């Protein structure tokens, strides 16, 4: 059992996208429960990949391909039944209206998911109303906003203002980041948190919702 799970984990780290499905099939055939395949195989591999990124052995292209490999394996694994991913919390993530730069959001998303959070990815150029309605519908604990342009960061303030006007019992925290966004700006617009890069974004989310649902 351990052997195939280790192979799945290694497959993620080594970015062997063509091999991942056959390994998942082998694991399922061996009657290993789906949760173990996910946690000890797929997720373990992605955590190891991010550790390599932290050590500057891997860079963004490697992290993206590791995540591609994980997602391919996960899609197949899901076809065998429900997986209890034991989400640490739910995050609605968007690049704000007027801005189409996706890279920052995608990297933070990969790292949040590897850290056990469920991320609802709304994509780029997303209207404030759509972001807020999605967060309410999904009962998200966090709204994460990204902007890479000085001209669109004002949309972050709009989301925070519109959210504050909503009469809802539990308001999600709003965290912000992106090339042009600073800690000072985040404080000015009353964001609940700011992060300058992806690993720090994970730490910020851990601090804000403490791994609780």
């Amino acid at each position, binding site marked *: 059992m351990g052997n195939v799970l280790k192979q799945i984990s290694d497959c993620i780290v080594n970015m062997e996208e063509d091999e991942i499905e056959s390994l998942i099939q082998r694991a399922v055939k061996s009657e290993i429960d789906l949760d173990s395949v996910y946690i000890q195989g797929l997720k373990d591999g992605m955590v190891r990949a991010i550790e390599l990124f932290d050590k500057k052995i891997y860079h963004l292209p490697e992290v*993206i*391909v590791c995540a591609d490999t994980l997602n391919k394996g996960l899609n197949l694994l899901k076809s065998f039944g429900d997986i209890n991913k034991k989400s640490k919390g739910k995050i609605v993530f968007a690049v704000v209206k*007027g801005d*189409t730069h*996706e*890279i920052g959001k995608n990297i933070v998303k990969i790292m949040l998911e590897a850290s056990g959070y469920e991320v609802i990815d709304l994509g780029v150029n997303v209207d404030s109303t759509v972001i807020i309605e999605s967060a309410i519908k999904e009962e998200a604990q966090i709204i994460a906003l990204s902007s890479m*342009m*000085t*001209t669109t960061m004002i949309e972050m303030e709009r989301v925070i203002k519109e959210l504050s006007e909503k009469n809802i019992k539990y308001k999600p925290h709003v965290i912000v980041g992106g090339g042009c966004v*600073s800690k000072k700006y985040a404080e000015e617009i009353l964001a609940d948190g700011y992060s300058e890069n992806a690993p720090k974004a994970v730490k910020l989310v851990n601090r804000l919702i403490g791994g609780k649902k």
Partner: protein
Amino acid sequence: MFLTGDNAYDVYENPQKQLEIAKLMDKTFPSDFTYSFCDGIIFCETIGLEVLKPKKDFPSVLNHPIVDLESLSEFSVPDPYTSGRMPVNLKSLSLIASAIDKPLYVSIQGPFTLAVQLAGATHLLRSIIKDPEFVEALLAFTTETVRRYSVAAQKAGAKFISISEPGAVTLNPERFDKYVVTNVEKIYGDLTCWKSMHICGDTTELLENMLSCNIDAISLDQIMNYEFVKEKIPSNVVLIGNLDPIDLLGRGTTEDIRKETIKLMKIHRENDNYLCAFGCNCLNDTPVENLKISINTGRMSYEELDKIKIRELI
């Protein structure tokens, strides 16, 4: 845009309007150079990407259609003299260069950043590992696009061309050399005007690689510590920057701006190769007075600068 009430395309499509704006900019914010209106979208628009065109903001791309060799083969390198809006823009550059007696500065998107726009950042980075042949072909396409346009801009009167490569901040130094240095050198090699490179974000690890290019000047983001950076800049390269355009110029007081500008100039007092400027693009709603105080302070003489004591700035 807030000075005249025009939207971006009113200006892009009208050389006379470009000249009018350049004159107004020069009168309101006099600097060492004259400028055309920022046009970071011209390559993507000419190549045929779908573009978001807000009324009071700069345009940006909405789709990234070039994802493999097959889709790349459907596009051709634009001719700056016949393709899309490029001839109109060259006419604008020519008008400004001949009407304003200052060197014309033109910022041009670099080949890697253009590739990011065409393929999407995530997909391009993924392809570095999964489809390196596509990445090489795409960069050959974007390099030739940027090279042809840069040469045409120089012929139109540009005296200072800055290649802007913000997308390259996602690369590690080895890949930066392979995908950026190699290609921008092909462009710089065909230019005789002053040449510069600008990259936003944290470029600490890329600084040496940037400096290995054949450049006359380098411009870095406001997050870079110029006290540290200046030690690494050779005397024949001008360091440009790096006042914070957001928290300082956009939201600071005029007194804060004056102090920070003076502090930055004092850091470089002994360096002949320093040009006081902003770290990146300003916010659209930056107060006019903030820009004026920054520019006026940045242009003060050494005599005036030396009279100001550091303790007065605390």
